[in-house]
């Protein structure tokens, strides 16, 4: 005798779904990880460290941060709010100032022969520098590069750097290569 199976009540379906929904709502963290990406230099064996690779002084922007979180750029104290402007001027060297980096003409796709400056920014910090300020300085320097890249891309293509395709971005990267060099750690200000 086949008995008619009663319908399974589905009224509680919504309740179970709600329960799971609330669980995921609570346990979820929406924030995606973001930050400033950098590539560390290859490790150098101790005996090979030498300062012989002289880079001309005009090609280097020296940024020092001491343990009291004070900034010194090219031998002069500076507030962090001025760093970006200074770095942009240094990287671009618009007026071919002899005290700012020299340029060498390179062949760049899309641009043809283009004078590329030989800039390097040297960043040195003390062991007592706070990480917050260090990141701010890194951020300001990155902002200087990004703004220059953006300006060039606006001039050439009328688009933002982020909206360019890969080859165009690479061409601009060749003109303004990110060159932030961090010194081998030294201990200036005593321990901690």
């Amino acid at each position, binding site marked *: 005798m086949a008995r008619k199976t009663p319908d399974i009540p589905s009224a509680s379906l919504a309740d179970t779904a709600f329960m799971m929904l609330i669980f995921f709502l609570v346990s979820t963290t929406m924030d995606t*990880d973001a930050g400033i*990406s950098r*590539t560390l230099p290859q*490790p150098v064996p101790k005996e090979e460290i030498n300062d012989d690779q002289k880079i001309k002084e005009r090609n280097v922007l020296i940024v020092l941060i001491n343990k009291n979180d004070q900034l010194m750029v090219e031998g002069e104290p500076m507030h962090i709010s001025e760093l970006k402007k200074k770095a942009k001027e240094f990287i671009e060297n618009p007026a071919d100032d002899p005290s700012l980096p020299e340029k060498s003409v390179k062949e760049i796709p899309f641009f043809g022969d283009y004078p590329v400056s030989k800039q390097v920014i040297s960043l040195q*910090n003390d062991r*007592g520098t706070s990480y917050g300020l260090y990141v701010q300085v*890194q*951020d300001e320097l990155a902002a200087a590069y*990004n703004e220059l890249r953006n300006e060039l891309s606006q001039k050439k293509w009328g688009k933002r750097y982020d909206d360019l395709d890969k080859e165009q971005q690479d061409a601009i990267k060749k003109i303004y290569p990110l060159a932030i060099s961090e010194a081998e750690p030294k201990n200036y200000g005593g321990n901690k």
Partner: protein
Amino acid sequence: MGKFRDGGKKEVPAISTSSLPDVVYMLLFFFMVSTTMKEVDLKIGVNVPMASEIKKLEKKSLVSYIYIGKPKDKFAKAYGTEPRIQLNDQFAEVKDIPDYISAERQQRDEKEIPLMTTSLKVDENTKMGIVTDVKQELRKVSALKINYSTKKGVRRY
């Protein structure tokens, strides 16, 4: 010839709730897909600094995390208040980092190793000394791609 309803005699039909589970399931699936569970139980307080020129970390499966910050209050007795390193769920020393990186590498495919990124989640009040030590240690094991974890925002000077 307009028809007029006289009075409010007609009863409003009950709203059918049979589609409610469907709606809820849709929301449920959205959250299930977009959710990322907390990776570790933090024993230190980490308040990462703010920055504006940031990039999103892609491929979360290739990221290993190093946390640096002051131990939380309940651990302060045992571990002091100086900034410490946390790897996975434990406090660690600088010398533990190579082991941690090689353990992380073993979990990945060989081809993916050069793409692995180390995310440094460091409290903004930490001194650079410990961060520099960690970076030197990472260089030694050739884990060269790093990411200083930050919040998005504009800083006040």
